[in-house]
């Protein structure tokens, strides 16, 4: 596979280390009332879709960016690649706006 790194251009997926579902960015609040349940769901439960999947890849043999790759798990087609930090910042901004 080839991942089109937003900063570095197309790179072989072999340069990256895979983590999993990008919802791992949305770590729950440790002080919330249902923190135990929320952390359980966050860490252990997965949508695991057959189709589009937003997922985290680490450019370990490269610039050490974490990326959010949107990829089809049936065809392996990659639809978009974002810097995870940008995604995380946007998610944080959304949370604080709520």
């Amino acid at each position, binding site marked *: *596979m*080839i991942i089109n790194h937003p900063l570095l251009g197309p790179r072989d997926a072999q340069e990256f*280390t895979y*983590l999993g579902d990008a919802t*791992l*960015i949305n*770590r*729950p609040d*440790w*002080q919330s009332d249902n*923190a*135990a349940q929320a*952390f*359980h769901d966050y*860490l252990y439960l997965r949508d695991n879709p057959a189709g589009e999947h937003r997922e*985290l890849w*680490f450019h*370990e043999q490269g610039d*050490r*960016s*974490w990326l959010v790759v949107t990829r089809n798990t049936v*065809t*392996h*087609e*990659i639809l978009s690649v974002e*810097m*995870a*930090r*940008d*995604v*995380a*910042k946007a998610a*944080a901004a959304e949370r604080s706006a709520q």
Partner: protein
Amino acid sequence: MTRNNRLKGGLINRDTSLNFTFDGNSYSGFEGDTLASALLANGVRLMGRSFKYHRPRGPLTAGSEEPNALVELRSGGRQEPNTRATVAELYDGLDAKSQNRWPSLERDVMAINDRFSNFLTAGFYYKTFMWPKAFWEKLYEPIIRKAAGLGSLTGEDDPDLYDKGFLHCDLLVIGAGPAGLAAALTAGRAGAQVILADEDFHLGGRLIAETGALTDISGADWVTQAQAELASMDNVRLMPRTTVFGAYDHGIYGAVERNADHLAVPTEGKPRQTVWRIYSKRALVATGAIERPIAFENNDRPGIMLAGAVRAYANRWAATPAQSVVVFANNDDAHQTARDLMAQGIKVPAIVDTRADAPDVEGTEVLKGAEIINTSGRLGLTSVQVQLAEGYTRDLYCEALAMSGGWNPNLGLTCHQRGRPIWNADIHAFVPGDGLPVGQIVAGAANGEMTTDAALKSGAAAAVSALDDLGIPATQAELPTAKDAPVSLSPFWHVKGAKRAWLDYQNDVTVKDVKLAHQENFISVEHLKRYTTLGMATDQGKTSNIGALAVMAELTGKSIPETGSTIFRPPYTPVSMGALAGRAVGRDFHPTRLTPSHKWAEEQDAVFVEVGNWMRAQWFPRKGEIHWRQSVDREVLQTRSSVGVCDVTTLGKIDVQGANAAAFLNKIYANGFAKLPVGKVRYGLMLREDGVAYDDGTAARLAEDHFVVTTTTANAVLVYRNMEFVRQCLCPEMDVQLISTTEAWAQYAVAGPNSRKLLQKIVDPEFDLSNEVFPFMACGEITVCGGLRARLFRISFSGELAYEIAVPTRYGDALMRKLMEAGEEFDAVPYGTEALGVMRIEKGHAAGNELNGTTSALNLGLGRMVSTKKDCIGNVLSRREGMNTPDALALVGLKPVDAKDAVPAGGHLMNKDGPIDAAHDQGYVTSAAYSPILNSSIGLGFVKGGFDRKGEHLRLVNPLEGQEVLVEIVSAHFVDPEGEKLRA
């Protein structure tokens, strides 16, 4: 027995004669021959034996789809089993042996299986060999295993080199027949980056196998012209002898180039084969078509071949399997075989054509509406029996039969991403369907364009359209003319009523087997394949799958496409495993990482051990020490009594800088770091988010906004990755930057009561190392040896007064030498990982054996370190009930009651009385060592509720090695439990 079956013409170089042997007999051929063509030219038809019935076999094909003519090529470590004689390029001195026969190819005792074929039907083994139970493994299976398999490995190491490479192109053209050449010329002239790969050593595909492929020029001459033009283009890479074996994601293709298989031995230092990973923007599959056989009684004798193959041998290789050849076909194309053979003076007694309306052929008789119903000749064809349309039978004497049931597009690469082919009723064959790999296009016969004319045009057009996608303007190359008309074909799959008519030649699957599979409800194509082993042989069913599908379709009353289709999996043809491994074998399997003082350690005769990819000194034997324990005990005792130095460069080191550095560490460590003063080090425990401890180390605060984190050697990469995850994904707002400096700093532990004295000799005098100024857990940036910058940490893994000192990597070797030189007066010793391990066990420090990925801070006795007052990775889930039970495993020390007993790591612990079984397991020993200080074996281990069981005796059981030892639960801190030494 040899006979001259060499014809005139052909693309062989008669000036270069090559000698070779097959089964010990000597023959000669010419440059340009394959092993098969040379053997045929020498009158040899018998080249192999089938898998199951050991039927005598000759080549069926002239290409890589060959199921029969498989040989062991070369010998010793270079012996290559199952090599297809049809593609093995002849070289001088080639030696080949037939395989799967004993004692000889002509007389194979296992051919007895053929007599019992009635018992050895599809799946017979599923129904028997069950009684008595023990006989399967003792008797039946060994016999079956011995009989099975084809060629053999010698077991000797393969002496050849292999390589790997990476290529990029706009257009990868796979196959250099008419379609591929037209495409490559078109794209090459347009200036695109083109790779043209063909599995053959001679480009041209069918153009060089046919006599009249083109109208105005011979096929071979045009190929020569085209090849010359392509070779002159800088933007085109020609890759003959290169099989594109797999289509992978995003336009990546795997290819294997056979650099030296046409030589007796690869050139010194050069690879035998190279695996290329080709990154293509577009890929054109122009892999042509594969002819299909017809199933009829005894259709597998040596001499029975595909008509196109017979033609290729005659036209390209100037070889004929026999002087008398009958043709059997359902189409016009095979008639050309008769014409080409007759033009060379070969007798064609008749063409047997299943079509009542077959055209006539000058010079021979066409038996229309006829079928071949049997053949004769044990080791080679002698005659065929024909059922005439009129109902009579007639015997035709011939030593070869050229048969053709039509042609199938060669779909392999189009299916590698599970694309399903679709049925084309015009050509009665499957053609590529939806689900082609992205960026892949198909042209020529591979796409069902079954004429040379169409192949040329579709190849050029495909190149134009592919380049158009890429924004590269192109016009179709001017092409030679070919006036061939589409071939008329009437589907004909098998002669009815045959008792044994082969579909899959190699695995001996006959029409009858398909019928049995149907009878037993193995109707789905995948069931059929698995039950009968159809298509599972080394040819992946390239010549057999379609015939079996057709038979199954007849049985079910459905059409062929309704019955199913089969897909092909990578690799397209079998690939040498050596090539896929490339250079990453033997010592080079993984990179070897050496610390800066490795050479110094070698000079000290250190014994090294693999630690991940690192090599670390395990111990440093001195003269007279004959057992490793002598060395290790000495290193421990000397360190504890004076001073020792250990290379700890392999520890992970991560620089953490930024205004939020402290807050960041507070997040990644279970314990608090916010308040750590500058100039101090703190032990830190990292949890995974699931609350399990996964790494420990230290963080030293060099400045308000600057920390240095150390990790274990094993987890250096993982910790850094996780820290970057927290930084980028969980705390993107923090002002903090990380970089791994593991390889930037060489680091040494200096431990023992004299460590301060030793360091004082090399640390520049302006730095005060006194206990008051530089106490336990102090850190600082210093200079040594007159101005060399260094970092000093007063931390201790051994439990002694100890430091770790780091200098830039390039000074590591010098520092080590300096330390040992300065330490002479204290009789300083270098110590290795063994002594390091002994001392940490004596001190009760957890390491990898304890931090095994299932143990929590609580298990490790560090439960109180997990702060509940702050958010950190892992703290919420570490509070789950199952991880906090009263009988949770607890890290304790274990000491044999009888000091003479050893405490094996990996032993399990049982109560002093009661049963010994899993249900009564109390825990296990994680680490063990002999403590020269305590003169006893000691261990660390986890015991259920162990913190409250100090003093209790347990049985340490090791049934694996027949041991049982009585041990006492003690504190894990065997040495200096109060920590007075390290604070001294």
